[in-house]
């Protein structure tokens, strides 16, 4: 057994392309997932029973079903149900946006609930509406407390995006499969790809640990 990285290095640009696509899917899922998570959290906290019930169901359903099943459902089943042209990218973004929004919703909910009730009352007392209190008083404090949990979830999302390779989206994992077949060097290809993911995720998780320490020092409790 001899390691030979030459074949991998020669086609390294394929892996770079895959990496960019991985980041693209992660970024788009965050872009849609975070606002959707906020909407779900506010709905779940709402006093309107139907609204909180529906939001609660969506959150629990997407948290308790495997993301790969969700991806297959959106890719293979949804186009039959509604007339849309489904591409691997759209399926991936839709799946991971909704899936991560369910988790983000719980982070938002925990953050909002952690804010003292007096803050709501104080805002109301000086004549703010619900929306104003939320935007100006509650969320700025809640979001700060949520940052570590939020970063952890984003890292989980980045790892989960490897699943898109199963519906033939050219992410890093998919490119690795292609390259391994092309070069007959699965050992080197998959090891290099594992290292790329490791470096990427390690940097992000160190950043999140750093942020957590900073927030702990400034006296902001961290909510999970």
């Amino acid at each position, binding site marked *: *057994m001899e390691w030979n990285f030459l074949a991998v290095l020669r086609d390294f640009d394929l892996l770079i392309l895959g990496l960019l696509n991985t980041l693209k899917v992660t970024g788009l899922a965050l872009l849609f997932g975070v606002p959707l998570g906020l909407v779900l959290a506010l709905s779940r906290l709402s006093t309107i029973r139907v609204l909180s019930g529906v939001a609660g169901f969506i959150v*629990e*359903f997407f*948290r*308790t*079903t*495997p*993301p*790969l*099943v*969700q991806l*297959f*459902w959106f890719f*293979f*089943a949804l186009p*039959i*149900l*509604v007339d849309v042209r489904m591409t691997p990218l759209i399926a991936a973004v839709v799946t991971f946006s909704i899936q991560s929004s369910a988790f983000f919703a719980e982070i938002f909910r925990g953050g909002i609930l952690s804010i003292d009730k007096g803050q709501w009352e104080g805002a109301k007392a000086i004549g703010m509406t619900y929306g104003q209190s939320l935007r100006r008083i509650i969320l700025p404090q809640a979001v700060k407390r949520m940052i570590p949990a939020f970063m952890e979830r984003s890292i989980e999302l*980045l*790892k*989960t995006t*490897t*699943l898109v*390779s*199963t519906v033939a989206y050219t992410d890093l*994992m998919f490119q*690795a*499969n292609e390259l*391994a077949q092309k070069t007959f060097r*699965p*050992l080197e*290809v*998959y*090891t290099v*790809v*594992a290292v790329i*993911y*490791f470096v990427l*995720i*390690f940097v992000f*998780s160190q950043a999140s640990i750093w942020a957590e320490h900073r927030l702990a020092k400034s006296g902001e409790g961290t909510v999970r």
Partner: protein
Amino acid sequence: MGHTWDFATILQNWPVLWVGIKGTVFIFVITVVLGLGGGLVVGVARYAKSPFLSWPARAFVEVFRNTPVLVQIIWFFYAFPILTGIETDPFLAAVLGISLNTMAFSAEIYRAGIQSIDRGQWEAGKAIGMTYNQTLRRIILPVAVKRVLPALTNRGIEVFKMSTLASVVGYVETLNQAKLIADLNYNPIESYTAVALIFFVVLFPVVQGTYVLERMLRKGD
């Protein structure tokens, strides 16, 4: 929406799906036992004072926590046999990937649990003549494990969901069988919906159970 839902084809193919469900349960039981059990060993090693124990444990945890589990499964399926000469079938590759990943995550949970125990407990153990190992086993771990029970249950839920990834390397489990049924009967909607519902019905009560458990522990502490 012109689709008429027809779950009859799923029921007709129930034996096919049942094979998959058994496969899911089988791999779940093995990976959850190995993962949570091995995690305890790694967690204790990670906490140890000796750098010969704590550093390898730390390296293990960082590697397996900072790479996607699908990459691990595929690495064990395609790369590991070349490196070691040990042939891995889909089952073994999936078990290695999922178990080692779970070990790394649960090790950190156990470590947090051990760290949360008051120093006085260690000193008390020492004062009545217990060795490090005795104190750990008889005093620290029983309380620590109880405290982290909700986090461990959450890990168990993750393992159950992760088992679907074994289908990527061709292990026969629920999702794999659903794909088979969908391809043969042209009913992806019903097939994949059925799988989603199966997971939801199993895991929803467990998730609710963890909430109850959390509340009970908070009261007890």
